[in-house]
């Protein structure tokens, strides 16, 4: 048993952290994350040069990674830096294609093309079972009709992979060029961008007509990525809060001297430790039959305990934490809002419960 990262992953993580420290300090991040296009194409290019997309792809498909711990290696530093580059959707698109053993283009591995995987819909934000978007044959190709909702990163994607139900009820995966889509882009309360995608007999190319399993793998990859992102954020929040307690003076002494606050700081550490461990568990299981189950557990704890960490970080900082200038505010917002991506805590709990009985 060995809980240390491999030297290679350690090196990638450190390079990535350095890169982000250089190009995305807190002030710059605020300038990018809340203004269209809600990310920075230059920063995206830097991430690609470093090989972040390639890290998410196995060697057979032209990358140099693709394991669960590769995903966490990338997303934990991205989380700590509150990076809003549209890497999640790209990672999920890659995971779907890899799972289908479908061709992965060089441009996709290098990040020259930016992909996004569009699954959720207004009434079906989570899961695959009740999707309403449909695909119909049209000549040699397909036409997609329906709406995909709050697709993170879609505002700047060059290619969109769409999950849609086709004639015989199965769920297929279809590719559409971004410029063929009626798209409404917007910014998010926690930074970054997303879009509503409206399909009205929009021409598409079928990648697979039996994509259920591959989409489940992509969702698992997404849950793992979000959990790692959450760990990166939660670590920052815990650090900042501990620092603040040590430095902030009230009633003539550092507030870290107040036992009630001490115990609450300890609770935050306990939550964080659970998040770290369950994310390790999910990363180790990625690609095994336990992968989806452990990823769901990770996302469940991220939803529950992540919110508690975020709320306590704000409360223990006091007024300063509810201002736009405070890094802790933006970290807290992102950590809370992660819950609403790809299935919140209650959803994960329901999915896990179905397997319980």
């Amino acid at each position, binding site marked *: 048993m060995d809980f240390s990262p491999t030297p290679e992953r350690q090196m990638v993580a450190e390079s990535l952290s350095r890169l982000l420290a250089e190009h995305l300090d807190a002030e710059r991040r605020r300038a990018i994350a809340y203004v269209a296009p809600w990310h920075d194409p230059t920063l995206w290019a830097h991430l690609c040069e470093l090989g972040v997309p390639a890290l998410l792809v196995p060697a057979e498909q032209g990358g140099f990674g693709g394991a669960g711990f590769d995903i966490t290696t990338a997303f934990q530093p991205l989380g700590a830096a509150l990076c809003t580059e549209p890497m999640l959707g790209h990672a999920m698109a890659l995971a779907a294609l890899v799972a289908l053993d479908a061709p992965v283009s060089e441009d996709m591995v290098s990040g020259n093309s930016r992909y996004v995987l569009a699954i959720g819909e*207004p009434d079906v934000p989570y*899961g695959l079972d009740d999707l309403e978007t449909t695909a119909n044959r049209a000549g040699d190709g397909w036409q997609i009709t329906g709406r995909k909702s709050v697709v993170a990163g879609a505002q700047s994607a060059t290619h969109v992979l769409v999950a849609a139900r086709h004639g015989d009820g199965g769920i297929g995966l279809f590719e559409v060029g971004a410029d063929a889509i009626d798209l*409404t882009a917007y910014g998010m309360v926690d930074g970054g961008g997303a879009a509503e995608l409206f399909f009205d007999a929009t021409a598409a190319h079928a990648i697979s007509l039996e994509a259920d399993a591959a989409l489940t793998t992509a969702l698992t990859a997404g849950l793992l990525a979000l959990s790692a992102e959450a760990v990166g954020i939660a670590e920052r929040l815990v650090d900042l809060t501990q620092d603040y307690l040590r430095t902030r003076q009230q009633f003539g002494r550092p507030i870290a001297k107040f036992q009630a606050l001490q115990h609450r700081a300890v609770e935050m550490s306990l939550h964080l430790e659970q998040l770290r461990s369950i994310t390790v568990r999910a990363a180790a299981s990625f690609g095994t039959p336990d992968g989806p189950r452990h990823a769901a557990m990770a996302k469940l704890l991220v939803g529950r305990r992540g919110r508690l960490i975020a709320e306590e970080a704000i*409360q223990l900082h006091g007024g300063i934490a509810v*201002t736009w200038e405070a890094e802790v*505010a933006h970290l807290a917002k992102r950590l809370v809002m992660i819950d*609403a*991506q790809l299935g919140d805590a*209650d959803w994960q709990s329901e999915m896990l419960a179905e397997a319980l009985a």
Partner: protein
Amino acid sequence: MDIRYSDDELAFRTEIKTGLAEIVWPELAAKVRAGSSLEKPEHDRFHAALNARGWLAGHWPTEHGGLGWDPVQRHIFDEELYAADAPRVVPFGLNMLAPVLMAFGSPEQQAYHLPRILSGEDWWCQGYSEPGAGSDLASLRTRAVQEGDSYIVNGQKTWTTLAQHANKIFCLVRTGTEGKPQEGISFLLMDMQAPGVTRRPIRTLDGGFEVNEVFFDNVRVPVADRVGAENAGWTIAKYLLNHERTNISLVGESTHALEQLKAQARQTRRRGQPLIKNPHFAARVIEIEADLEAHRITNLRMLSDAQRKGAPGPEVSMLKITGTRIRQAINDLARRGLGPAAAPFPSEALSGNAALAAPEHANAAARYFNNRKISIYGGSNEIQANILAKHVLDI
């Protein structure tokens, strides 16, 4: 024990409900429902309409031009404001400064300021908090040094709510440095237009602007604009904090917000049925509803106590803690109920066919984040817990 409202109280409620229906115009109600910030003219128009009926200061004693409402009437009025989608009455002049003037102000101060508060001529804001002195007022550092018949004020206030609309500010300032830190504090009435006063908006974490920093650079304040004796500001501050807390249960606001939440959960569809039928979501709604029902009774019990005994005791700290928790729990659930649709800034283009939720719900995430403040300001919940601990443990 009879916990029903009396016939008089029920009639009072009907009167208020009917009147508010006439006062609140549709655009105002829509903005309130959507949680949008109001413009100053909207505030002014609403205040004037309330004042025309005497309701703006209904809770003031009759000798000062009020109607002498008791705490229960005041609570009913508050509930009805929320039920009517009316905005909260801006409290700084009416509910905070006015009681201070009535208790500590000179007859001249009362005669001059109280009518101007009612008329809307003066919009007051509150200069208490400073950077570095949030819950610890004794450590405040804004200084007033007497020069002839004026004080010269230097320093900085922060978290000054709606100072962007205000022409007046009441401030706690340090006038003495001897004795205990809280002994050298005075209470000043200041003009926001005076030379040397500048304000800078603070953007809140949800992107909104409602609080400000206010800077004083050699601002001259007539000594006559001090309320109470020099260095007696601590007593006034404590009196005011107590008064500020009397309306802190948030029962009216939470009741209304819970109804909004239920409406939202009936409209939202998940896995082919309304979200309200999801057992987990429903259970969370139910627990809040039960907690709010209990809290409503606690509030009425304490109002009824206050009606009999006069000033509220330290138990009102309970109302603050439980009230803010319930309010925040509703905010949290409203955000969660929307799922991913809570994340976009609704201000940005989510209109027309891209709309993700009804306008009164779409702001759920921003409101959740913004309302993290309510357990921090007005004496953080930790400070309230300290007060209660002293009380229940006799320490």
